[in-house]
């Protein structure tokens, strides 16, 4: 990124601010490194949103809970059989489609938070995602996400960095005033640079918002390029790995983004969810592969990295009439990365007795997901309690940052 880019951006900023009625780009340069300057770390954070509400009880199964097998019925995991679940401790077992996560867990670089949820207690995906990504206590019309607001509070410095939004459309979590850049794998011959520059020039005079979007798209595409990034068609699991590979490559660069968000679709398993094999297993295999891609792609940076995997809510504890699960509440969050103080399952386990289920249907949430994310943000980037409680997750003082998630 050159000086000219910065000037250009500031110029566009004010005009875009006018156009969008108050949305302004406060600054371009952020230096997350500041917070950890003392110990020489250069922390990275990846937020993975699983859209559709992951079945946490099917991913990290409480095999030790006497009610689990009955509730999850034909799709329940077991410790034996052809596809045994991977025991994480004497009570919880991991889905067999996730050997990479299991390895990270054994190496103490992965952790599970169970019976977690955002403050949202209804069952609409879209409101649930709004709460999860906006960081507000309820669904609203907020056009910024908690990750962007966290980015905005980081100290500014000489090193250019910004949030990275992965995929053809930008999720809410990295959206907001702080600059983000977007990237997705491409399969097209590229427009030549001269055409692109002429268009940027036209937009700059007529449509600053498009100028901003296009120049960022051009910049990012160049940075992530390379032959190994050509899509090979392939299935959803392969695509998850491919997206992770590209994002890791961008983040591994010295001046690459330190913070990224991406979303994987397809977790709304109302019917024929499958147990150790089947539809959910296929997706979990893709997620597992994506985590491994981050580990490989970040290379030496992995040591200081945390990947946070979250979803808008869970699914019913009891399977429905069609071997799937309907929209529920409590679920899991996963942490992976060299910086994670792992090898642990963090849960205040509520139990699966009918009386203990939320509304008689769902795993009762005992951990506020905001506490988990706040803990990671605090440990990785040094955000204060106050900033986390007021700016990043407004009105969330009661959900204290969870301590010690990062080594």
């Amino acid at each position, binding site marked *: 990124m050159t000086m000219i880019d910065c000037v250009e951006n500031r110029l566009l900023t004010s005009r875009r601010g006018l*156009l969008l009625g108050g949305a302004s780009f406060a600054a371009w340069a952020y230096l997350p490194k500041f917070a950890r300057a003392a110990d020489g770390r250069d922390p990275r954070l990846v937020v993975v949103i699983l*859209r*559709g509400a992951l079945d946490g009880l099917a991913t990290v199964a409480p095999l030790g809970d006497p009610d689990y097998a009955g509730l999850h019925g034909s799709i329940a995991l077991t410790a034996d059989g052809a596809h045994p679940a991977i025991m994480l401790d004497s009570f919880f077992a991991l889905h067999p489609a996730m050997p990479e996560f299991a390895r990270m867990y054994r190496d103490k670089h992965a952790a599970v938070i169970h019976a977690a949820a955002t403050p949202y207690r*209804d*069952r609409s*995906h*879209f*409101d649930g995602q709004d709460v999860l990504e906006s960081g507000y206590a309820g*669904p609203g019309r907020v*056009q910024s996400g908690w990750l962007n607001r966290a980015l905005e509070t980081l100290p500014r410095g000489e090193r250019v960095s910004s949030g990275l*939004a992965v*995929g*053809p*459309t*930008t999720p809410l979590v990295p*959206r907001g005033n702080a600059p983000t*850049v*977007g*990237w*997705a794998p*491409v*399969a*097209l*011959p*590229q*427009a*030549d640079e*001269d*055409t*692109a520059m*002429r*268009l940027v020039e*036209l937009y700059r005079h*007529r*449509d600053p918002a*498009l100028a901003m*979007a*296009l*120049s960022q*798209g*051009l910049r990012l*595409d160049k940075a992530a390029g390379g032959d190994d990034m050509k*899509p090979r*068609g*392939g*299935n*959803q699991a392969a*695509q998850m790995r491919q997206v992770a590979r590209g994002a890791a490559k961008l983040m591994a660069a010295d001046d690459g983004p330190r913070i990224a968000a991406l979303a994987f679709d*397809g977790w709304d398993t*109302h*019917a024929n969810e499958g147990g150790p094999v089947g*539809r959910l297993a296929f*997706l979990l295999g893709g997620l597992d592969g994506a985590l491994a891609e981050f580990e490989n792609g970040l290379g030496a940076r992995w040591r200081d990295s945390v990947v946070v995997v979250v979803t808008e809510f869970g699914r019913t504890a009891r399977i*429905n*009439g*069609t071997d*799937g699960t*309907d*929209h529920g509440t409590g679920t899991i969050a996963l942490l992976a990365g060299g910086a994670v103080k792992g090898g642990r399952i963090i849960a205040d386990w509520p139990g699966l007795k009918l009386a203990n289920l939320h509304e008689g*249907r769902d795993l009762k949430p005992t951990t506020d997901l905001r506490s988990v994310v706040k803990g990671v943000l605090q440990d990785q980037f040094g955000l204060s309690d106050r900033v986390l409680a007021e700016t990043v997750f407004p009105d969330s003082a009661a959900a204290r940052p969870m301590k010690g998630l990062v080594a």
Partner: protein
Amino acid sequence: MARDSQAALVALNRFGLGARGGASGDLINAASDPRGFVKAELARPSGVLLEAPGLQSTPQLGQAVFAYQDQVRQAREAAKAAAPAETQAPPPVDQKPALRRNLSLNAAAEITGQMADAKPADMATKPETMQPARPAPQPLNVIQKTFRAEALARLQRATLAECGFTERLVVFWSNHFCISASKGELARVWAGAFEREAIRPHVLGRFADMLKAVEQHPAMLFFLDNQQSLGPDSRAGQNRKRGLNENLAREIMELHTLGVGGGYTQDDVTSLARIITGWTFAGRQGQLGPPGSFVFNANAHQPGSQILLGKTYDPAGLAQGEAALADIARHPSTANFIATKFVRHFVADDPPPSLVARLRDVFVRTDGDLKAMATALVDSDEAWKAPLTKMRSPYEFLVASGRLLARVPEDPSRYLNGLNLLGQPLWSPAGPNGFPDTNAAWAAPEGMKLRLDIAAQIGARLGSNIDPLDLLEFAAADAASIETRRTVERAESRQQALALLLMSPEMQRR
């Protein structure tokens, strides 16, 4: 005649699918009577229907898929039986269908596959190939053929329509009541028929009729799993030890009618799920009716009365659900939800409250007359005065480009591939809430970069035969900005000029 090019842009771009190139003079017509130009299409309700040679009904298509699946199964069994005799078994004949069965695969892989299938010529004719393991290209199966034919019919209609307002309405409602073709083979083969049968006939009719048609369409029942949902106390539920799936019931209330926060509870969701048990489609055996047709399976229906939104619905079989839907369709929350979404789509991400209120009142007063609501939108001043700030969706962008270039598509591949790349694969949104409808979604950095790449491809392919300034006249005439005009004029080649024109704000915003 008075000529208002700015209003013509609103007529053609905000309400329609953009001006057509060639000699059609759309912009001149729209400029002389902008409101009349838009409303002319509303006066021709039959023009919304889509009947093209070769397009089949949902039951016909269902039967074709069932037959195809039988064939695949037989081929697999035959291959399995033959396998032990050979030491080196060749790849099974049904390899492709077997892969495709796993339809958590997204549409990308499939469309890419179709495109590869579409140009197999040299591979097939070469006597020897360096890749002996690669199976010969196979003819398209019935699912691929149908999807492409349906896509083509829709694209041709969109390209040829005079204004395109009713086609925009079709796309709006089809996205509101979306299914996803990536759900499985039946959804893929039915995606086009669903729109033709459940959406188009009602786009200028009553909301309640569209709602009933949609929720009883096999494609929707399949997409949201209702064919699997059994009343726990029904005979089938008792026999098969299976029960409710509340997916369809929830999305009816959350996404199709009342809207989230529209005043329903989890108990209402469960009640509606029970009320619509038995709403299914006849399977391949055809025990309940012609295979692939909507049927009410009384054996699967939860017996007894149900309380929904405070009202008791007595047991009456199919009529129980139809009564419930009729009430939900005229609920005040529904009117508000629909009016808001409608104005957001056509006018602005933050819809003007006064306009929303007016359309909501029209919806209530006319008992959900969608033609009256569309007319009220066109008659409003807000819709003509609001600046053109909405981004065209990828579909609108590609269709508008095709119209301007006066290219009637003969093969849907490029469109399907383009939609796929731009994050709007045809009839395949990621969730039941459909594709997003805001600038934040479509003016994202990566999306803009990809649009430019596509525009450059179009420019390279078609630019040599066009006069870019003529096209600019067709697209915007004197409403084009000086900067756009200058950028197009000064391009270093016709190809580049075309790419820049297609990417200009006049073509991207509506």
